[in-house]
């Protein structure tokens, strides 16, 4: 499963065009900056890993804080100095682009995560103004085996992306887009026979953060076996909007997630 940065030229140009100066400013961060959200689906689509992306009006990024919270504040100030604006008092992390154009990214959600032992989770949460339930485990899991782009940007490995989406959906099951994103990625990987190449990355990630790996396995198994907490019916509208035949979906998901699970299991068994 090869990640080709050359396939991201158009995406980089779009970011530069709609969010001017962002990449250069992020490039000065001490910690790694991880791309989150629907943008990841666009990148996977550009790689040819999934058949479609979904439209989004923002770019979600999480900046690694290595020493203390001032690192995040410096980046934020640099963006504001470049013309980015804050208009949502409840979302301290949201910064609107100085460029106002349709069909482009209108704002950034600039989040942060602790990277290294010098910074606690509480400090990181306080810095970006989120509550105690905000978890960094999945972000740190997703940074394992992530793909490095120029300017200090990192794209999560698909298993890491699944971990983040699963955690988000469990935290708030009304976020049905997260559930459909999970299905999009797994169907795409299996349909393209890419799940056969996930084994080494999975073992490395599971070895580094076993507690998150257990949750990922639980999610995959839950969907494969139709567990009630992964029931598709609450996301029916979202599935239909993305072109799924809902009558066939549960059967297809059961088979496809089972095959996905089999390959992770095979690697685990082989290495054991």
């Amino acid at each position, binding site marked *: 499963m090869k990640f080709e940065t050359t396939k991201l030229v158009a995406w980089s140009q779009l970011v530069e065009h709609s969010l001017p100066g962002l990449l250069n400013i992020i490039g000065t961060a001490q910690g790694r900056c991880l791309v989150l959200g629907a943008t990841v689906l666009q990148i996977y689509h550009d790689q040819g890993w999934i058949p479609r992306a979904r439209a989004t009006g923002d770019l979600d990024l999480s900046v690694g804080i290595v020493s203390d919270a001032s690192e995040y504040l410096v980046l934020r100030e640099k963006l504001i100095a470049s013309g980015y604006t804050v208009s949502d008092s409840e979302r301290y992390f949201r910064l609107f682009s100085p460029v106002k154009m349709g069909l482009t990214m209108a704002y950034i959600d600039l989040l942060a995560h602790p990277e290294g032992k010098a910074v606690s989770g509480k400090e990181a949460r306080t810095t970006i103004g989120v509550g105690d339930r905000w978890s960094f485990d999945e972000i740190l899991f997703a940074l394992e085996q992530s793909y490095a782009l120029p300017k200090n940007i990192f794209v999560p490995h698909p298993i890491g992306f699944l971990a983040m989406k699963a955690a988000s959906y469990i935290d708030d099951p009304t976020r049905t887009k997260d559930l459909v994103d999970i299905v999009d990625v797994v*169907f795409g990987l*299996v*349909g*393209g*026979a890419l799940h*056969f190449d996930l084994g080494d990355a999975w073992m490395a990630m599971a070895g580094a953060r076993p507690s998150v790996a257990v949750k990922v396995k639980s999610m995959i198994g839950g969907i494969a076996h139709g567990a009630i907490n992964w029931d598709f019916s609450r996301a029916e509208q979202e599935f239909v909007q993305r072109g799924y*035949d809902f009558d*066939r979906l549960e059967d*297809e998901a059961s*088979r*496809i997630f089972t*095959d996905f699970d*089999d*390959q992770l*299991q*095979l690697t685990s068994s082989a290495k054991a």
Partner: protein
Amino acid sequence: MTDPVDTILEPLRGLSIRRDQAGHLLLEDIYFERWSFTGQRSLEEKVRQLSTDRIRGFIFDKLPARTRAWLEKNRISYITESGYAAIHLKNKVISLQPDSRTMSPPLSEYIATSLTSEARPSRFINPTAFNIFDALIRIPSYELANLSGLSFAKSFGLSQSALSKIMSSVAARDLCALRKVIGRLGSSWWLEAMLAPRTGRGMTPFYHLAQEYRMHGQDFDRKGVEEWARHVQSRYSESVLPGPIEVAKAVGAIYDKMTTLWVDPKAIAALKREFKLVPIRAGEEPLCAIAVPKGDFNKEAIRSMAPDGGAFPLQANLLPLNIFRVVWDLGFGDSRGRDARAAVMKLVFNEV
């Protein structure tokens, strides 16, 4: 010198027919003694004196029709050396006529009735029994005649206790007799019994397990599918067997481009990875349908315990399949599969 009674009882070989050390005949639970007929009055006197500790019958050299009628009216079993017989079994009377190779009612009907009412099809339609039957029909009669139940079970890794119960339930004296029972039951009994309630425990039908796959980035024509299937079976010789539909194809009962495979649970993930097999979605053409049994091939009676035996007119790669299991599986398929069962069952009857 052969006892003429043995010849007369030839059509009843599916029943338990034994002789004690004194040479007295014991047919099922009826103890026969010879009686020289000198008149009906003396016979009636003999009958009155019979103890009730065992069911008795009589063997006569000859017997007037009037006395035969009297015996039948009084439900007393008899055999005459001239070829008449009336055997009063539980809830059934078997009658034999001279110079007749058939009997009324037919033995298969009696056995079928016995199986359904007493021995139950569940004793015959399960993986343990399928392993026994499949091995039984593959071993030549002359070899079978020299094998005891114990040595047969040991030689082929079969359950001796199950074999013993099956033989008792059809009153088969030996392995050859049991093999004949398989044939005498008839195709319709087997096909009905395989679909009877409370049968098939320990087996999951191929059709219930099968998932359809395509090979990522590859399309195959019919010949290509066949070549690929042969390659997979050769590459994974211990872990892959043809699916039951392949036998139906071989006997000309089904035409299908897609191939079917049984794959051992331990090998499935590696096989899918090696050949980049991915589940099909709507509108995609499958290369194969793969079923992964819950147990291993032998426990589920998918693979024959005597794969080198038999003379089935099939390709070599199909010979390791348990033929009873194949027929059973086809019963759970679409109408083509169900129609194919009789054609495949013929392979069994050609052997017995």
